[in-house]
């Protein structure tokens, strides 16, 4: 069992403040991580839309060379892991990875199953449902966006094209972006939050401890030392000035000590007088004083006994 008052006062406060600040920081980090990931996915979706719009003219013109060049240029951008366009059947027509051209994508993978979970594939999906996160073959974490390329009047009205008006989706653009910048941002934020938490804890727990030591435990130790000195019969030392309730306590202790000192002196004086024969006869005025001192000492003894 912890017996010191400092331990009893500081341990619960330290445990409470530390635990609560850590819980709040962990929850805050979790919420911010979700927000930042959602933001990154939104930006990737916007980027995918931009790519689809950039390639629109080349698609209308059926300019494969231009399309390949656009995809190669985009995939050379730092942070872009892959770009591919596949048709409705899942055949990859254009890709930054030459090896996968003219291959079929797996409809059961994370990016495809959202539309292809039922017997009839869904024609439209929300922004966040189009995003998926996975680790690619190179071991890098990727946020991938699949943006459907919808059939538009310009497509099925063009003289060169063969898409019927009833076909809703012509193909899909799949673009993968590295999660490394997001992870770096999260790591930086995590580090800063840890530093902030440690600083807050040091300030709070340290501040409470310092204030308790300065205002309560320090003065209490001084009063205890003073009482010990009084018990040893040392009445020479006093107490320094304190503030507030500590001052009241110190004043009370000092009053008791002064009374005790007076009584002890009076008792000693009385004992000395009794010890010297003949002195009592020379000083007839003393007995009343002696009686007063003795009765006062008796009173104090009685009070002490009651106090015990």
């Amino acid at each position: 069992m912890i017996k010191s008052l400092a331990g009893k006062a500081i341990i619960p406060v330290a445990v409470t403040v530390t635990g609560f600040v850590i819980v709040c920081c962990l929850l805050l980090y979790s919420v911010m991580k979700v927000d930042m990931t959602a933001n990154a996915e939104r930006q990737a979706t916007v980027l995918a839309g931009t790519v689809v719009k950039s390639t629109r003219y080349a698609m209308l013109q059926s300019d494969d060379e231009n399309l390949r060049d656009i995809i190669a240029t985009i995939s050379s951008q730092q942070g872009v892991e892959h770009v591919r366009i596949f048709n409705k059947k899942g055949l990859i027509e254009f890709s930054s990875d030459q090896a996968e051209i003219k291959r079929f994508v797996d409809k059961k993978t994370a990016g495809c199953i959202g539309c292809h979970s039922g017997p009839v594939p869904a024609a439209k999906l929300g922004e966040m449902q189009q995003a998926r996160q996975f680790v690619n073959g190179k071991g890098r974490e990727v946020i991938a966006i699949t943006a459907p390329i919808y059939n538009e009047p310009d497509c099925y009205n063009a003289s060169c094209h063969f898409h019927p008006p009833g076909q809703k989706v012509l193909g899909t653009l799949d673009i993968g972006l590295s999660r490394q910048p997001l992870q770096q941002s999260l790591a930086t934020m995590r580090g800063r939050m840890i530093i902030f938490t440690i600083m807050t804890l040091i300030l709070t727990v340290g501040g409470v401890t310092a204030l308790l030591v300065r205002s309560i435990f320090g003065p209490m130790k001084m009063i205890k030392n003073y009482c010990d000195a009084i018990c040893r019969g040392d009445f020479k030392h006093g107490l320094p000035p304190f503030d507030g309730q500590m001052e009241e306590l110190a004043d009370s202790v000092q009053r008791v000590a002064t009374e005790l000192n007076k009584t002890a002196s009076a008792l000693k004086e009385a004992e000395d007088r009794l010890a010297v024969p003949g002195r009592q006869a020379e000083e007839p005025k003393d007995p009343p004083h002696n009686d007063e001192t003795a009765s006062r000492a008796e009173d104090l003894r009685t009070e002490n006994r009651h106090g015990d």
Partner: protein
Amino acid sequence: MMRQQAGLKTCGPRTGMGIDSHAASPPETPLDKSNPDAQRLAARQKILRLRSRANRSLWAMALFLAVSIAALNHFSFLPPLPEQIQDLLGTPPPTLMISGLLILYSFSSLVLILARMIGDAVSHGGFYHVAYLTGFYCFYNLAGSLEDNFWAVFAAGATILSLEGYHLWTWCSRQINAENEKLDRLDGK
């Protein structure tokens, strides 16, 4: 010794603490105050009860640790919920709402434990906190965000149960000391 005995007689909160102790434990048969042996036996039995009660918080912590290990594996040892029950339960609450509730729960629990410490009231060991925390694990798991929020629930549980355990341990230690002093008085020490 005299001072300690006097302190026990005159100290108000200690008397209150004794009442709380009785309120929390099963009613005891009235002691024959003229029979010191019966008093000694009662004191020893009370010490044994208090010692076992002080260990309650450790059991609660062990239980919470076991639940946390299960939550770390997404409760994979449990069979998946049947679709009918899932439909009955409806959509899980949003993660933000669960997190808000976790903060509210942690804050109120810590304030209540501190209030009990100030009032020197009895602690129950924290088993009901384990139940609440398991609920949070389950809600996060149903919302699909347990992986992100596991450590927050774990930190909340560790803090609450540590504080509850500390309170129970100090409370029981004080009671045991009081009983030991009583035994000393009976033995004439």
